């Protein structure tokens, strides 16, 4: 049964210390508000799993939430590296983190195995790369039918996946448009799914355009309406990326004291996303707002 709730309640009910947690979003619709709530609630020993750990994972690592990162590309997209991730990987500061590393396709295939209840998924990836030597969940397998070979990856089945979409009804049927990334399989591979959206809508809206549906409510445990919950990343049609925040993070995160001050100001001293948005201010958000550019409506026909 899907539960419409607040992010604080969804995280305190749905996430526990030691969980493998997937905050999905391939550079788009990244659930920053969910990550901040996990920091506020002081979660520890998380295995932060995601194809593209970026600022939100860097912030969670800096706050001491992670003991492991499972990933395929860890960086600040378009800007550079992740200082807190690097400090943890190179110097074990603030905590030592274990790394489990894939390529993008390897990661997606592992989620696919998890989402489809298979013991492994095959791919023509990793060929010629040194990565399989360093990850026991990647194995070379021979074709049972000819002399070809592929690599196999073990399933990734997160305890909790957080996905973000533009809108959903109260049952958790969700519409997403723009870049789809790994949102769907990361959710289907997980035990518990927290769905967070820009706005709630009617079931009629969802049913008017079923091709746009990312997930149906059967696979969603918690629905949280959290406008601007992806800031500073973007939500297609709602806001663009706050690029200054990405550039600033590169400087802030390179200094441990500044990270602490930043976490105090923007996470610990803020109650929820609503307060964060108020603190950010209307003018900042208006600058990120795109002009409207509607897709041509389709005629589904009445039958």
């Amino acid at each position, binding site marked *: 049964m899907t539960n419409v709730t607040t992010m604080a309640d969804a995280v305190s009910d749905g996430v526990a210390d030691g969980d493998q947690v997937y905050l999905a979003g391939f550079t788009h619709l990244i659930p920053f508000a969910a990550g901040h709530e996990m920091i506020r609630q002081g979660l520890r020993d998380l295995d932060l799993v995601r194809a593209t750990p970026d600022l939100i994972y860097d912030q969670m690592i800096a706050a001491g939430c992670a003991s492991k990162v499972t990933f395929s590309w860890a960086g600040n997209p378009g800007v550079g590296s992740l200082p807190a991730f690097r400090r943890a990987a190179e110097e074990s500061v603030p905590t030592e983190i274990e790394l489990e590393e894939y390529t993008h396709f390897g990661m997606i295939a592992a989620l696919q195995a998890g989402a489809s209840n298979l013991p492994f998924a095959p791919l023509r990836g990793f060929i*010629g790369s040194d990565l399989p030597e360093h990850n026991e969940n990647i194995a070379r397998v021979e074709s049972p039918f000819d002399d070809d070979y592929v690599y196999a990856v073990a399933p990734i089945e997160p305890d909790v996946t957080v996905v973000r979409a533009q809108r959903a009804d109260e049952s958790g049927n969700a519409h997403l448009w723009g870049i789809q990334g790994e949102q769907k399989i990361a959710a289907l591979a997980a035990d518990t799914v927290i769905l967070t959206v820009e706005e709630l809508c009617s079931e009629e809206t969802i049913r008017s355009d079923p091709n746009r549906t990312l997930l149906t409510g059967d696979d969603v445990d918690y629905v949280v309406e959290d406008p601007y919950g992806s800031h500073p990343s973007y939500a297609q049609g709602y806001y663009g990326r706050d690029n200054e925040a990405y550039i600033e993070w590169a400087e802030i995160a390179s200094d441990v004291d500044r990270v602490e001050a930043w976490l105090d100001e923007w996470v610990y001293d803020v109650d929820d996303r609503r307060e964060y948005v108020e603190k950010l201010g209307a003018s900042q958000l208006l600058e990120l707002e795109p002009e409207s550019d509607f897709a041509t409506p389709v005629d589904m026909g009445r039958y």
Partner: protein
Amino acid sequence: MTYTNSELMVVSAARELTDDDSVLVGIGMPNLACNVAKRTHAPGLQMTYESGTIGSNPESPPLSIGDPGLASGALSIEPMTNSFNYYLQANRLDVGFLGGAQIDKHGNINSTVIGDYDDPIVRLPGSGGACEIACHVDRTLVVTPHSERRFPEEVDFITSPGFVGGREGRRELGLEGGPEAIITDLAVCRFDEAGEMYVDSLHPEATREEVRENTGWEIAFADDVKTTPEPDEEELRIIREDLDPDGQYTGRSE
């Protein structure tokens, strides 16, 4: 005509692309190169991004591969399962751009670690889709500054295979394609029959000595080393007025 090294690199990369190509674009200089090609000699160039946007046509340089400008107006937006399975793995893309901290004489690329994997000196971002791009497109291109640190004889870690230990080594793994050109701020390098990198053309201001000093092995030069053609007025205008007006990627602000 004056131009920066970066502008020359962008234009040289653009000229590697043809009208029939479908290309997996990267952020930064590769994105500029693809857009220059599309606006000059290759209007039919199909630009796909790792985020799954097919047939993107960004009006301004994307801030990341997740930029909304790559999604708006694209021909299709595929979830990662589809883009990696059906498009990349199934060899539907012709060209890909790759980058990394190290490139060795066989075109193998390291974007994972400097030093030992388990005790790294520098932890780099990792493969992302680079390994799959290197395995599955017909031709890979690299645009990178030329330095000894970036061009060791052998990379510390193979993230994305080039010719592995040579062309034969790549074939034995069952891989086709491979690196085609490495475009640096000194030269355009290609690969010989054995799969070893050599200098095909020197940039107008560069010398053989500079290339040797900045390469970690005794790099060979083509018998008939050419001079890299300079950018023309239209290519420079497109970069300066349309694609990189702030000089963010091509360094005119420096």
